[in-house]
Each structure stands twice: as C-alpha cells, then as structure tokens.
C-alpha cells in the first residue's frame, strides 16, 4: 500500500502532462459541438494527422545531421502540424458535414465516423508508400530529464524538459484561444453562432464562414496537440487517434460540452484520474478507467462540471 502511495506524486505529474494534451484536443470537440451539435468523430484523427505532420517535419529537419536548436525544431513541427490540420479540418467540414446541415444527428455521426476511418487508412497508405512502414519513431527534441528529490519519497520525481515545454505550450495556446473567443469580433461571432445560428445570420454573420473558422481553429489546436504529443511519446501510428480522441471527448464532456474552460479542466482532470487509476489497478486497465469515466459522466452528469443543463425539447 505504501509503495502505491509512494508512486502517487509521479503519477499525478505524468497525468498532468498528458492531461494538457487531452485538453488541447478536447477544445476542438467542444468548439465543434458548440456550433454544430455534432460529435466530430474525426477530430481524434485530425490530431493523429498533426502527429504525423509534426513527426515528418522533425525527421526532415534532423536528417541533415546539422541539427537546429530544439526550440526551432519544435516550433516548426507545431506550426506545420497546426497549419495542415487547420486546413484539413475545414476541408472535412466542407465535404462531410456541410451537405448534411439539415440531416438527422445519426447521419451526421455516420459521416463523421466514415471520415475518421478514411483518414486512418489514408495516412497508413501514404506512409507505407513513402517510408514502407506506418508506425514511425519520433526524433527526440529535448533530451534533458530533471530529477527532483522530495523528502519522504524513496525515488526522485522525474520530469523531462519536453514535458515542461508541452505544458507551457498548451497553456499559451489555451490563453490565446480564450482571448480570441472572448475578445475578438470573429470569436464573439463564433459564440453567437453556437447559441443561435439563425439569429446570428440575421445580424449579418456569415454562418458558414464562422463554422469553417471554428473547424479551422479547433482542428489547428488538435493538430498542434498531435505534434506536441509526438515529441512526448516518441511513437506515432495511424490508429492512435481513436483512443486519445475518445478520451479527449470524455474530457470535453466532463467539463461540460460546448464550454471551453470546461474542456481545459476536463482534460487535465481526466489525464490525472486515468494515470492514478491505472497506477492503482494496473496499467492494463488504464483505458477501462477512461472509458468507465466516459460512460459514468454521460449517464450521470451529461451536462458536465461547468456545463449548463441541456434543455430537453418539450
């Protein structure tokens, strides 16, 4: 028992790092759900594409043997991943969701699942042709590892510089997004569209453009998260988006779907709970913990921690 307590601080620390990544992805789910009332099932795969783009950029930049500074490497990978996935997300909206604006939720969700499956195998196909394999190792960006001795703990806490960078980058992006949505004209328009599409259009807001913008921003964040994740966990596969996507969605629901600060909170909470839960009952069941949280929250607390009660049609 005391040995599990001994590991607790490290588990919480690891959970925080992965939680920030979840939070970045969760934002994409929550923003899209806000404007379209759709679970963008393909968002986990947008994240995966971001991870691959980031990895490819890192590979290209480290291949020459004349390494750039790690900061420049990371910046290039994240920016490229965000740019590609932002366009990808907007493209998905145009092709798979916009024609279905009037369709029932079920059909939209089916379309989203279709896109998700398609993306996974397409990335696999492209990488197989390009490199002959589709599970790629990611070049190391920051190698430094810090060990912190804490009184009362037998083992020192380890934390990688890369983790710190991931957390800081995540916080910066979240602050940026919060300012964008809260203060700018397009950000406010986004909130108006999320609340009432028809009335927003009556104010002269081009609803389709705002929806596209929402996908652009949300997917870009997801893609950036993918690149960060790749540097942190050193291996990418075309199928990584499924589990992480579902978990990030869970995070969005935990925080109250449609609610951006809620998504941050939910992501961090889920990351920690999953690590700690997995640490106590075995890492084999780590995903069971995450999925169980998903089911329990949806069933018992569908409006989440910060969400408002969803109005049921009378």
């Amino acid at each position, binding site marked *: 028992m005391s040995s599990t307590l001994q590991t607790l601080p490290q588990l919480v620390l690891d959970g925080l790092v992965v939680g920030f990544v979840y939070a970045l992805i969760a934002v994409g789910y929550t923003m899209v759900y806000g404007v379209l009332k759709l679970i963008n099932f393909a968002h986990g795969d947008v994240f995966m594409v971001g991870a691959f783009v980031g990895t490819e950029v890192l590979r290209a930049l480290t291949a020459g043997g004349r390494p750039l500074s790690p900061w420049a490497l990371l910046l290039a990978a994240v920016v490229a991943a965000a740019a590609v996935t932002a366009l990808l997300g907007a493209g998905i909206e145009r092709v798979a969701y916009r024609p279905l604006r009037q369709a029932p939720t079920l059909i939209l969700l089916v379309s989203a699942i279709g896109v998700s499956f398609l993306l996974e195998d397409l990335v696999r196909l492209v990488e197989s042709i390009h490199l002959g394999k589709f599970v790629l190792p990611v070049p190391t960006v920051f190698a430094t590892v810090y060990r912190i001795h804490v009184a009362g703990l037998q083992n020192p806490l380890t934390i990688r510089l890369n983790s710190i960078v991931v957390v800081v980058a995540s916080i910066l992006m979240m602050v940026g997004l919060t300012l964008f949505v809260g203060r700018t*004209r397009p950000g406010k328009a986004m909130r*108006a569209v999320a*609340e*009432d599409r*028809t*009335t927003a259009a009556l104010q*002269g*807001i*081009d*609803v389709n453009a705002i929806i596209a913008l929402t996908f652009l921003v949300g997917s870009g964040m997801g893609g950036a998260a993918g690149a960060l994740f790749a540097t942190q966990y050193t291996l990418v596969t075309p199928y990584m988006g499924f589990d992480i996507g579902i978990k990030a969605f869970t995070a969005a629901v935990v925080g109250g779907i449609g609610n951006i600060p809620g998504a941050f909170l939910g992501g961090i909470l889920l990351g920690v709970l999953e690590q700690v839960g997995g640490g106590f009952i075995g890492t084999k069941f780590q995903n069971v913990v995450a999925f169980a949280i998903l089911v329990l929250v949806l069933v018992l607390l569908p409006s989440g921690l910060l969400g408002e009660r969803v109005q049921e049609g009378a």
Partner: protein
Amino acid sequence: MRRGSTIATTATPRMLELDDVHTYYGPIEALKGISLEVGQGEIVTLIGSNGAGKTTTLRSISGTVQPRRGRILFLGEPIQSLPPHRIAALGVAHVPEGRHVFARLTVQENLEMGAYLVRDRAQIRRRLEYVYAMFPRLVERRRQAAGTMSGGEQQMLAIGRALMSGPRLLLLDEPSMGLAPVLVEQIFETILQLKRDGITILLVEQNANQALRVADRGYVLQTGRITLADEAARLLDNPEVQEMYLGA
C-alpha cells in the same frame, strides 16, 4: 396589382415589394402567393391568427426560409435567393419572434453582434449611445448575460440589437408577446419613436388592435393568403376584422 421595379421618387418610394411569394416547409405550403409592399418611412402591419403565415412572411423577407416561387424586391433589387447575412447587409433587420437574444453573451456583446457588419468604431459608439438612450434599462445591465434578464428587457435588447446595424427596414415579429400590459405600452411607444427617427417598419402582431393603432397600413393574412389590405384606420373600423381579430 401595380408593377415596376424602379423606385419612383414619390412621397413614399417603395422600399419593399413582395410579388406572389410562395414559401414551403417541406410539403406544406405556408405562403400561397403573398404580394405586398412597404413604402419608405411607413409602418405596415400584418395581422392574422396563429398559423396564418405572418412569421413566415417575415422569415421569407429576411432569408431565413427561401421562397420557392415569387419575387422579393428590396429597394428595387431582388433578394429572394440571397442568404440571410447578405440581406442583413443590405439594411434589413429582423427581430424574430421570441426575441432570441444571445443568452450567454452580455448585453453589450449582443449589441456589438447587431453591429457585426459595421466596421467604423465611431459609428458603433454613436449607435450604442442611441440605443442606450432609448432603453436606459440596458445601460445598467451592459455587463450582464442577456439570458438573465426579464422578458421585457430581452425584447428591448432584441430591438436595440437590430438598431445597431442602422437598418433601413425593421421587421418586428410579435414584439409584445408575453409582456405585461405596461411593457406592451412601452414597446408601442418605441415603435412610434423609431418611425419618427425615419425607420421603416413591417410589424407582425397578435395584438391587432394596438398594431393597427400605430400602423399606417395593414394586411390581413389568412392561411397563407392576403385577404384584406387597407389603411390601418379603415381596417380598425372594418366589421369583419373586428369580429375575427378584435373580439368585438
């Protein structure tokens, strides 16, 4: 029926003209050929019972639903196939039934959304002052989420939001719905004030009596068709209208 698409520079140039507009919801024909016109500076009201097509007429004008047949001219230009945000950009502001303020945005943000298409900050400031002067209640609540206000305050906000775009034509759908009598009185005062400020208004009201009192002209709708069109005062005296809508 008078025809002609150019605006004559008469005393009341034509601002809005509907010509044989048919609008459907799925297989249901909600408007079965509506023709009407609104002159510059007029208040025109549409009256009729629930389901007659009053709201659908406004929605067809603002582009929230697209007519299947017929023409809608605004200042002589056809707008029947434009999306709503383009129609709004031309100077048509629609205050929908049930107010539809953005509940989670603050009062001030709601008003800013009304001025979404206005790029000139000084202009926005002037309009904000105009709206706050007209509805002083909104000033004290400017930082408050719009959804937490009372029905009457929300109605003021909805009208104020529409005014922020500097509209040439204001479409008002049931502005007095669900409001206490005192507030109803106030809303109709506001409508008259707007007319004095030169805004053209197309007003849909359940409260036919009040509506005909402030309006210049009125149309009576019945199951998607116009059955009567006349000066408002004459409609008020029309025995048929009295029986059906005024309860006399």
